[in-house]
């Protein structure tokens, strides 16, 4: 009987944590080469943010990677592509589509529109800069800060 309030608090805390995990967590990159190479100009985005066919296109068009040359030696490139494809997210795109910009995906736009002030965006400079607002993004946690 004495335990009841404690249990209730614990259960509430756990359900809260579980809900946050479900909504705002995406497993971070665990592959050393992907972490190293894909974090040079931006954080290494979790593979789960794009479907497999997107990563396949991404990793074979590095000579024009969003307006910059991001080419890698072939062994490293193939290694990273294999990891990203194997750990990719569910394919929610229309048949045949291979979206490349995470920031243009419907869920991303929905999550960010009306959430991000003009000043916040100016400070972040780009949608590529998750860490500007999501301080724990590198650990896969994308809760609102």
């Amino acid at each position: 009987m004495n335990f009841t309030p404690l249990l209730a608090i614990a259960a509430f805390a756990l359900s809260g944590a579980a809900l946050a995990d479900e909504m705002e967590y995406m497993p971070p990159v665990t592959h050393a080469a992907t972490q190293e190479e894909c974090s040079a100009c931006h954080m290494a985005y979790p593979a789960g943010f794009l479907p497999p066919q997107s990563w396949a296109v991404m990793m074979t068009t590095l000579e024009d990677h969003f307006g910059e040359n991001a080419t890698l030696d072939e062994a490293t490139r193939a290694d990273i592509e294999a990891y990203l494809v194997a750990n990719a997210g569910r394919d929610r795109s229309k048949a045949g589509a291979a979206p490349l910009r995470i920031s243009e995906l419907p869920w991303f736009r929905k999550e960010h529109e009306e959430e991000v002030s003009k000043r916040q965006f100016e400070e972040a400079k780009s949608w590529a800069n998750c860490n500007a607002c999501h301080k724990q993004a590198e650990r896969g946690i994308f809760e609102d800060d």
Partner: protein
Amino acid sequence: MKYLLVLPFALLASPAVAQSTSPADLLAQYSAEAGAEASAERGKELFMANHTGGKPDTPSCTTCHTADPKAAGQARTGKPIEPLAPSANPERFTDLKFVEKWFGRNCNSVLGRDCTAAEKADVLAWLASL
């Protein structure tokens, strides 16, 4: 013994994992390859100029590195870039593979082609003089 103490820090130092070269060695290597003496003045011109052969978002080295290589730059993604000048950032030009990767990428982004050994020598001569 000294090496044993240094090693853990060298491994932690990102992005250069292994110290395979130095600015002076690299300058000598590029100059020899070019068969000419490097010119810091030409290097500065190349670095500061606006070019038209490359990708439209990156017309100049200064687009991301700024016009002051002793200061930090910023990638188009918003991520900071450590200073390029070895006097401001001792890690620069100490890892041959890293240097070649970024000359390869950035010369193609800015100029639309690889840089020549002479151009690399010139830019390095300027950066090392700052």
